[in-house]
């Protein structure tokens, strides 16, 4: 892991995660209210909020995977192993969603 001598700064990651969670909750409520004040349709606001929230969630998940689960320091092969199941998972969800297209 930290064989290179440089210790990962876990507390910094923790702070980041806490901050991002706060931003998420704020986005879902406060930012939404604010955005609805503008001249954009309700649908578009919802879409935008969803995209922002998903982006934040992926960011948080990446922080956990890279730092807490040490993927940042692992070999390429192990990193591939970690992301490989996302392929069939995505296939399943996307293909079934095409039912509604």
């Amino acid at each position, binding site marked *: 892991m930290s064989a290179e001598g440089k210790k990962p700064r876990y507390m910094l990651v923790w702070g980041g995660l806490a901050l991002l969670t706060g931003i998420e909750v704020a986005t879902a409520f406060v930012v939404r209210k604010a955005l609805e004040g503008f001249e954009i349709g309700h649908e578009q606001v919802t879409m935008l909020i969803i995209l922002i929230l998903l982006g934040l969630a992926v960011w948080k998940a990446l922080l956990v995977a890279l730092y807490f689960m040490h993927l940042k320091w692992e070999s390429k092969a192990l990193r591939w192993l970690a992301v490989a*199941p996302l392929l069939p998972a995505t*296939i*399943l969800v996307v293909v079934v969603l095409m*039912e509604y297209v």
Partner: protein
Amino acid sequence: MATMTAEPSGIPVREEHHPQPFIRKYIFSTDHKIIGIQFLFTTLFFLMIGGLLAVMLRFQLGFPGEAMPGGSILPETMAPGGIILPEFYISLVTMHGTFMVFFAIMPLLVGVYANYLIPIEIGTHDMAFPRLNMISFWLFLISGLMMLSSFWVVGGASRSGWTQYAPLSANPDASGVFTGQILWCLSIAVFGFSSLLGSINYITTIVNQRAQGMTWFRLPLVIWALFITAILGLLAVPVLTAAVIMLLFDQTIGTTFFLPGGGGQPLLWQHLFWFFGHPEVYILILPAMGFVSEIISNGSRKPIFGYKSMVFAIMAIAFLGFIVWGHHMFQSGMNPRLGMSFMVTTLIIAVPSAIKVFNWMATMWGGAIKFTTPMLFAVGFVMLFTIGGLSGIFMAANPVDIYIHDTYFIVAHIHYVLFGGSLFAIFGAIYFWFPKMFGRMINETAGKIHFALTFILFNLVFFPMHGLGMEGMMRRIYDTSRYTHLSDVQDTNTMISIAAFGLFASGLYFGVLFFWSLFKGKPAPDNPWEANTLEWTLPSPPKHGNWEQLPTVYHGPYEYSHPDMDRDWLLQNERPDIVSPAHEVTIRKGEA
């Protein structure tokens, strides 16, 4: 890839060879070989159950409305006076499929042979996680017994087909089964966990524990097949587990995942089931292909033709296996555009299968073929699997599937693949590795009789089903006489049923032969088939822990008829320059 020079393995020799009490040695054993053998006995039992269910349902189809001989011992709720009731018939169909797929074929391939073969073919002491391995077996046994017990609960066993299409399966009012249905779901959930523990073990062991020199492209093809199968199981079975749990919730706590009344989607069940179900089909055939590759190369005394393309074909089948599931759903009301894409991927998957068949043929070409029992079963596999593969093209072409979907054409296809394919390969494997597992031989003549009976009766049973399908005979119907378009299928059905009873009898004959050989068979030499892979360097049966010192591998597993050798085989841990024609020595320790 990094290289390192050869040096004695740093892995400590495990504490072996101290006497263990019976319970630890044979019941709660962590030895991969014992666990493999435990799986073998249990799955042969479940195979017999599955066969017995088939005999009963074939009786109804062959002799509708007649009393089954001996059937009067069944309770009134199943077969009053020996006459099978429609609801019991559906239970029979459902449980035949369930037992054969989940509790016979799949664990025969994976539970038995992945456990038994992986450590002794890659050259290690045991699985990476022996205790998980033991738990996996016991969970499997529990789930199988749970499934079996559902016949005797109120309402009987599940009546929704092995595919458990919702809402029939999710709504007890529609199927008339409550407890049996819950048991089905629980059993499969437990089974899923057992299979998961197995997969973790197989993958970790193959990745991490290969002997020195056992590089990826020196692995026997059966190990490749089991490895890819484990990956398929790892990624596909959890989806089934999740789906089955949702189904269970629909039945019990009022959720509505698959119930349209509460906004649920019946087709979602089918998508989840077949997302598991199609990789499952390859779980059921890839290891069989692995066995056949071993046996055909061995029986032809010739290196396997196109080793690497065999490996890549396995990988291609596995990958494509995840994107073809919709071909089970062409007529399900799925978006027709999806039907189109699934048809294309399905047709493409025929290509790697074809490559494999041609490579086996090319392996036999120019060989010096020995007609051993395993070889006969392997050749039988190639001949029958080809039929199953070719009939698959009919249903892959979705316009034709409109007509033949859910008819006996499908039944013929699945049995050519799973019985003519997988089960023939399993029989071959049992004959091939029996000497190693139990230290005794199965009589060759008796084995060949078993092959001849099975081969002939199998074709008599299942080939005419293609014709029944062309007539339009639907699956899972209790009585064909209700339909005008099926007015002239009864004679064929009767003939099929009689042949099916014979097929079951040939299975029983095999059972007798198996147990007789267990005790009375001729003692087996270490390498009776003169094969190359590492397990044949061990005594028959191998000791706990397999090796005292781990072997070193110098070349691939199929060096038959090597020009530098007098004899026509070359073990993976032998070097031709050491095992010179002048003085043959076996490298195995302790025998020099």
